[in-house]
């Protein structure tokens, strides 16, 4: 995979018009600057969100089924029957 970075002077304290980036060049290997802590917390947050979302959907669907069962039972009690 290819990332794009700015080509700049190694000495970041001295800024001259000549030291500014004049082009973008691709570098291999990507950025190493991403915080490991942020990645760790993001990974666990996403995994728990997926799991809890799935549990919530299951619980809600089970509730809807039970509610419909109760409605159906009530409808059948009220419905006219064949003699």
């Amino acid at each position, binding site marked *: 995979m290819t990332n794009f970075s700015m080509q700049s002077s190694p000495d970041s304290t001295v800024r001259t018009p000549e030291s500014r980036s004049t082009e973008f060049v691709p570098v291999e290997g990507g950025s190493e600057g991403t915080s490991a802590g942020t*990645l*760790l917390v993001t990974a666990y947050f*996403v995994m728990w969100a997926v799991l809890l979302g799935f549990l919530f959907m299951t619980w809600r669907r089970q509730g809807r089924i039970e509610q419909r069962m109760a409605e159906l039972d009530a409808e059948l009690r009220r419905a006219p029957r064949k003699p």
Partner: protein
Amino acid sequence: MKTKTLLFSTLFAFTAFAFSVLLYLIFFVVPQAQIAAGGLAQKIFYFHAPSGYAMYLSGAFCFVGSALYLAAPSDSRNALARAGAECAVVFGIMMLTSGPLWAKKAWGVYWAWDPRLTTTLLSVLVYVAIVVLRAFSGDGEAERKFAAALGVLGTVNLPIIHYSVQKWGGNHPTVIGKGGGGLAHPMMKLTLGIGFLSMTLLALLLVWMRTRLAVSATALARAEEEAMALTADGEE
């Protein structure tokens, strides 16, 4: 009925306890690995690898339910096949979202078309296809059989994922098993072991819940049909 409820509650309690211990070990006890392996981000491994294993386990439930359904159709077998595919998708998503976040630190990129990553993505997509098929094509006999056949065929890919690292190489590490260097610290081994135990319990719990849900949904559909027939007879 009471025995089932008690068993379910016990399984739930054990799962919650195992996950509490696992999270404590990951964030407070287990040391971080070398920088080349991702440093602190390597701790994603204790959820990532067990999620992959839980996907295999759910896929195995899907395979068993599908194969049994094709041999002798029944509502409970269909429900098990359906539940297995749904849980395989959930664990697959957990694995495919956590892996790239770890890879970003260890490899410098989120994704590489490595044999294991590619075959895993393919397998998750097969289970997604089964879930989508079952959700949108109705619950008729033909649809059930087609989904069951897909469930059997989809599981064939699982051993390919497992052995792809050994056969075709790639970026994905082989720490555990044949050719792997193992985990150097005893706490790493313990944490991974508890990770596998926690995910096994979670997979059993989720497959159980989704199977029960699928059985209830089928029972409701049948009851609605019977009720319609009864009320139609009553009105005549």
